[in-house]
């Protein structure tokens, strides 16, 4: 058999700037562009204080979107996350109001564990309905979106659920308003959650399986991967991320209502897509997702600080961003 000339060069292949994946870089380039635009619009914008504020405010969406990155990479979709935030937060506050445990520290610890368990259970429900029930994730989570929202309305009897114990309030406050070594707690938690998520997605067997399932579930099945288990666990991870977001949300306002977290699913999915994760599954970019969440909040902030666009258009702007992001993604795919 004659040796093909192709095999000879294989080892001497060098990487050049051309090999950089444009899709991975695009969100960060967009972020840089926005920072420049912001600085031009308003000199206060680029200040560390303002940017730290923006980062803190995007914490909820960012953390939820990290979970969404897993679900979307596995080829699924979770529309219920906004309702799940309202539901889990309501349950957590009601638990703390119940006074079942007298000691505030112990009570708070138990409430945290309870919220995490509730989030995981909600995610598990989504996962099982989708996989065992064999229902399209879009429909399954559209259903649970209504269920979680409806249960919240019922729990609150149409009004608000407010944390009543002042001692617990005082104890819990720093979880959102405090800082660790000068870094606001929400920002530290975003970074920690993202680092763990990136490790799981890129460096573990499970992460590889998620991408394989999202890329082609038949190939995954023929490779001996338990496809349904991988998908279900992705939904559970989404639930855990929602619970972590709730842990930050409750100390901020100390109250929930039937309108808590409305349209957060849209923002979370937007952040994921802006971050470069393919909506049809098979490629997850956790750090891109964080970048996407930051971009969304930043655009709102710039609109607020500038005089020429009404801040009432923020929702419309975020809607436009997801469409633009998809168009950019597609054009980059074509080029490469």
């Amino acid at each position, binding site marked *: 058999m004659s040796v093909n000339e192709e095999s000879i060069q294989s080892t001497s292949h060098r990487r050049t700037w051309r090999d950089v994946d444009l899709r991975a870089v695009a969100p960060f380039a967009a972020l840089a562009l926005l920072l420049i635009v912001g600085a031009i619009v308003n000199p206060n914008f680029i200040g560390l204080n303002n940017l730290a504020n923006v980062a803190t405010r995007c914490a909820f969406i960012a953390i939820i979107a990290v979970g969404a990155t897993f679900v979307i990479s596995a080829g699924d979709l979770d529309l219920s996350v906004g309702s799940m935030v309202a539901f889990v937060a309501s349950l957590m506050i009601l638990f703390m109001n119940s006074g079942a445990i007298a000691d505030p520290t112990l009570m708070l610890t138990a409430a945290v564990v309870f919220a995490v368990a509730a989030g995981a259970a909600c995610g598990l429900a989504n996962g099982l309905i989708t996989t065992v029930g064999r229902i399209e994730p879009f429909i399954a989570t559209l259903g649970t979106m209504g269920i979680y929202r409806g249960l919240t309305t019922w729990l609150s009897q149409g009004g608000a659920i407010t944390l009543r114990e002042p001692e617990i309030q005082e104890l819990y406050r720093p979880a959102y308003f405090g800082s660790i070594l000068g870094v606001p707690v929400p920002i530290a938690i975003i970074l920690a959650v993202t680092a763990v998520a990136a490790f799981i997605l890129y460096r573990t067997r499970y992460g*590889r399986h998620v991408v394989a399932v999202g890329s082609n579930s038949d190939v995954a099945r023929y490779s001996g991967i338990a496809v349904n288990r991988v998908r279900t666990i992705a939904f559970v991870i989404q639930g855990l991320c929602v619970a972590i977001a709730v842990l930050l949300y409750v100390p901020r306002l100390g109250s929930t209502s039937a309108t808590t977290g409305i349209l957060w699913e849209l923002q979370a999915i937007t952040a994921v897509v802006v971050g470069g994760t393919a909506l049809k599954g098979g490629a997850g970019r956790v750090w891109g997702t964080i970048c996407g969440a930051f971009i969304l909040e930043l655009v709102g902030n710039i609109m607020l600080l500038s005089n020429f666009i009404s801040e009432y258009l923020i929702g419309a702007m975020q809607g436009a961003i997801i469409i633009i992001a998809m168009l950019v993604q597609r054009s980059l795919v074509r080029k490469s």
Partner: protein
Amino acid sequence: MNPETLETGSVVLEARRISKSFSGVQVLFSVNFELRAGEIHALMGENGAGKSTLVKILSGFEQPSSGEILLDGKPVTLPPNGAAEALGIVIIHQEFNLAEHLTVAESLFLGREVTRFGVLDRKYMRAETRRVLDLLGCRVDANALISSLSIAEKQMVEIAKAISRDARVVFMDEPTAVLSREETNFLFRQVRKLRDQGTSFVFVSHKLDEVIELTDRVTVLRDGQWVKTAPTAILDGESIAQLMVGREMSSLYPAKTEPDVDEEIVLRVDSLSTDYVKDASFEVRKGEILGFSGMIGSGRTELMEAVAGLRSRLSGEVTIRGEAVPSGDVHAANRRGLAYMTKDRKAKGLLLNSVMTANLTLQSLDQHTRLGYLDPTSEAAALGKARRRFDIRVRDGDVVARRMSGGNQQKLLLAKVMETEPEIIIIDEPTRGIDVGTKQQIYHFISALARDGRSIIVVSSEMPEVIGLCTRVAVMREGRIVGVLEGDEISEQEIMRYAAGLKRMAAA
């Protein structure tokens, strides 16, 4: 057929000094090709020889980088995206372009529906569909849904579609890959009939025997260059194969090694049944290569998937080295050392958008996990080893599977399955759609694995492959194992007798 009229048949479509480059890589070098009215012209070559590119250029799906195309002797620029159909140039793709939920009649008239007073004239379209189908001798109902048709019937509908568009030139890319022998014969009869009425066909295929049986002339391409055009009558399979690879094909199949009769039986399947497979029993010894032959749809893949745990079985036992394997449990089968290699490498075998490493280790990530995380160095080492062992030739180690040639994809898939270190390997269609050179390599890999003491089941629709490789051949028909051949009994005629239902073994 009369060679005289063929010689004088006017040239319908001609390619003159066609060259084509894709992003700097030249794939066609000044190729000439001419197609006469009323001929069946075979286009042959190994994978990557440029056949598909030439077909795409001659049907307008790609534009040549240089050179010209002549239609009826006049230079033309063919319109892109299938618009060349209006000129009578039709391509029948390997993957069907049929919408599953339309009826046969709707498919035939898709995009050129006939209307009366602005309303669809369904009666006329149905009648016209019937007429074309009858012309082909095809008994499919014009109102049947495409999704209800067999693969062969879909192929016929595609051909009917081409004819109903008054095609003068029809390109067929591997049309028989999914057809049984009977269906192929039927297709060939229809093609000859149309040829005699003046339609020209370009027939792209890897199957040498079919080319010799059906075509009038052969053009061979090698590495993007025109090698030869000659009447089929003066060639034989051996000479075409030599033209394609440019070397002697002395030992396509390695020497067979019979396993000892008293070797341990590693896999035993007892009266296994699924929805389709009925009461299948067989056993495999250590170091044996067992073949599974039969028509398409005879239940071979279904049986093997049930053995591998990818499909649950209704009844029956599977035992590996005396240990029972539970039904529908891939992991249990894998743990006991059985691996199944799918025949559908693109849809079920490889992640086409992922790099080689991710594909190679997907099934065996445990070997590369250290304290819960994946070790990239260990994965890279595995890839290096696999590339050497299975001779996977790519320019760039980070290429995604989609960009690799069929042969390299198949080698990568084999490497991936072998990463799990299986003792029993079921290989379904080991060489589907790959060139002769790579075929030969894969046969040698299989043979080496068997000499290594592993047991291999080869499921194949290509009879020479089963005959050339296996020491024992089981033949399936309609979900049952109807015969097991050994030694000198293994021949095409004998296998055919069982596969066609003319003969069956005495009930055990």
